[in-house]
């Protein structure tokens, strides 16, 4: 059974929006994804019919809402094959998840002389939290370099990991599309006695995730990139690790006792969910997970691989040396995210011209400045696709690029 992209697209009202009388081509899904009707409806109906505080109040409306909220946690836990839903902490976005990892686990475990290993293809969200903490704690940050074909250069990994306490890396690059060998990287971290923290923002929405098969220690991802609402992210971590970590944000819901001189923490996962959580958003995320699983993550991946293949050939066949795609060639080794340089035209100008054709790509550094510096670009244009993208989106991109040539 293959993904029926026309049927999928009908679920996404925004994709049939017309601008200046012409259809739009949204090619910025690595940034954020659109929302299917089922998610929008789940949120609206919940607010109209069932909205209530969760956890804290005991009347029937509140119990009902708490059940829906906790059911969403269970869905998310199953989606990534977590051992237990106690391992699933809801945050506001993946950035908060990674900051939680750094501030809570990191502040408790890192000292001068220690090292944290990152890679040259990390998003700022997996760099800056470590830099902030390193300033305070004085540990070292080491960087895994890249090969010329946009893979992690693992030749000196064991050396880099020597004495490291954590290895934090992305499972898929948001610029290059490169899919990293997450399972092997986790094993390498463990062999060196480090924990493995996976930034799953770009892979979790696009392919099946199994934290047990990876043998990862933590995983961060965002709802808004996987058909879910904004305002909610996830930190998954091994239960014993979460148990050992000090709290991150303090407030209601995360405590067991508060006296004038001290407080004690609540049980997992509440210990890490201070304050009123994004109740409606978590409900929406639960529906997004149902939606994705209804289609099947392997189908999503297959569709994107086909589209990747189609796009790669369409772009290079038409523009040859005029286009440089920063990323692996083989669709098996990459996601449907294309960063490219076009005939020396500045990416800002490229995206401006494409915009005129309702082709929406992102231009800039994609929150990965160290990587940009490495590939020698100040900015790139990036076209990224998802389960609802189709060949006509690719064709529109190819066609519109021709207009870039005609102006510049």
């Amino acid at each position, binding site marked *: 059974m293959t993904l029926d992209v026309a049927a999928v697209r009908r679920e996404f009202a925004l994709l049939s929006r017309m601008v200046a009388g012409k259809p739009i081509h949204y090619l910025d899904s690595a940034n954020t994804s659109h929302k299917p009707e089922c998610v929008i409806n789940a949120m609206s109906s919940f607010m109209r019919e069932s909205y209530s505080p969760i956890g804290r109040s005991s009347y029937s409306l509140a119990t009902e809402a708490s059940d829906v909220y906790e059911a969403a946690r269970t869905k998310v836990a199953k989606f990534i094959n977590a051992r237990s839903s106690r391992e699933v902490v809801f945050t506001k976005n993946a950035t908060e998840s990674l900051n939680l990892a750094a501030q809570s686990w990191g502040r408790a475990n890192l000292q001068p002389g220690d090292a944290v290993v990152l890679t040259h293809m990390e998003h700022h969200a997996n760099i800056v939290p470590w830099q902030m903490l390193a300033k305070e704690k004085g540990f070292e940050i080491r960087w895994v370099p890249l090969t010329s074909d946009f893979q992690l250069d693992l030749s000196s990994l064991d050396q880099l990991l020597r004495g490291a306490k954590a290895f934090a890396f992305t499972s898929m690059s948001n610029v290059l599309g490169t899919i990293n060998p997450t399972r092997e990287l986790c094993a390498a971290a463990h062999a060196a006695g480090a924990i493995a923290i996976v930034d799953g923002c770009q892979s979790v929405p696009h392919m099946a995730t199994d934290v047990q098969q990876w043998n990862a220690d933590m995983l961060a991802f965002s709802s808004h990139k996987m058909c879910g609402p904004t305002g909610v992210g996830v930190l998954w971590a091994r239960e014993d690790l979460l148990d050992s970590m000090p709290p991150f944000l303090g407030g209601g819901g995360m405590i067991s006792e508060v006296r004038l001189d001290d407080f004690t923490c609540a049980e997992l996962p509440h210990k890490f969910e201070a304050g009123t959580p994004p109740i409606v958003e978590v409900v929406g995320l639960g529906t997004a997970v149902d939606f994705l699983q209804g289609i099947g993550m392997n189908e999503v991946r297959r569709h994107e691989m086909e589209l990747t293949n189609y796009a790669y050939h369409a772009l290079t066949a038409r523009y040859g040396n005029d286009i440089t795609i920063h990323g692996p060639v083989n669709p098996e080794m990459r996601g449907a995210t294309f960063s490219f340089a076009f005939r020396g035209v500045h*990416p800002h100008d490229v995206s401006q011209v494409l915009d*005129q054709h309702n082709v929406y790509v992102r231009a800039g550094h994609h929150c990965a400045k160290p990587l*940009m510096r490495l590939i020698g670009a100040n900015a790139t244009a990036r076209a990224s696709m998802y389960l609802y993208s189709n060949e006509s989106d690719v064709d529109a991109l190819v066609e519109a690029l021709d207009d870039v040539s005609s102006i510049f």
Partner: protein
Amino acid sequence: MSNLEDLYREVILDHYRTPRNKGELPPPATCTEGANPLCGDEIRIFLDIADGVVRDVRFSGHGCSISQASASMMTIAVKGKSVADVRAVAKRFKQLMTIEEDDGKVPADIRLGDIEALQGVVKYPVRIKCAVLGWNTLLEGLDSART
């Protein structure tokens, strides 16, 4: 062909393709750096000021057509002018870009000339930052030259 003629006027593309006064000036000329974090554009403005007059100016760095063309046209507009006049031109330009209000303080005889070609940028708010990058860096340069 798209209807971007408003944005990418011929004079702008000309300055982009053949930037004027691109390069550096050796000390004692001042060098001021500017950047647009959103798109990664970076610019440096070199100023040779004596007796209250901008005797020479150069720019270097990289950026999109709008930021490059704007910087190029800017160098022509300010070279040889008094610092006071340069400030007035910059102010008028920012008024054109709608990021400063016309408070009536810029003398009527201060004209922008070719630079007015950039007014199409106003329809594309994100690009306004590109257009003013060189000018803001210029103003910083004037400030630091004074001290």
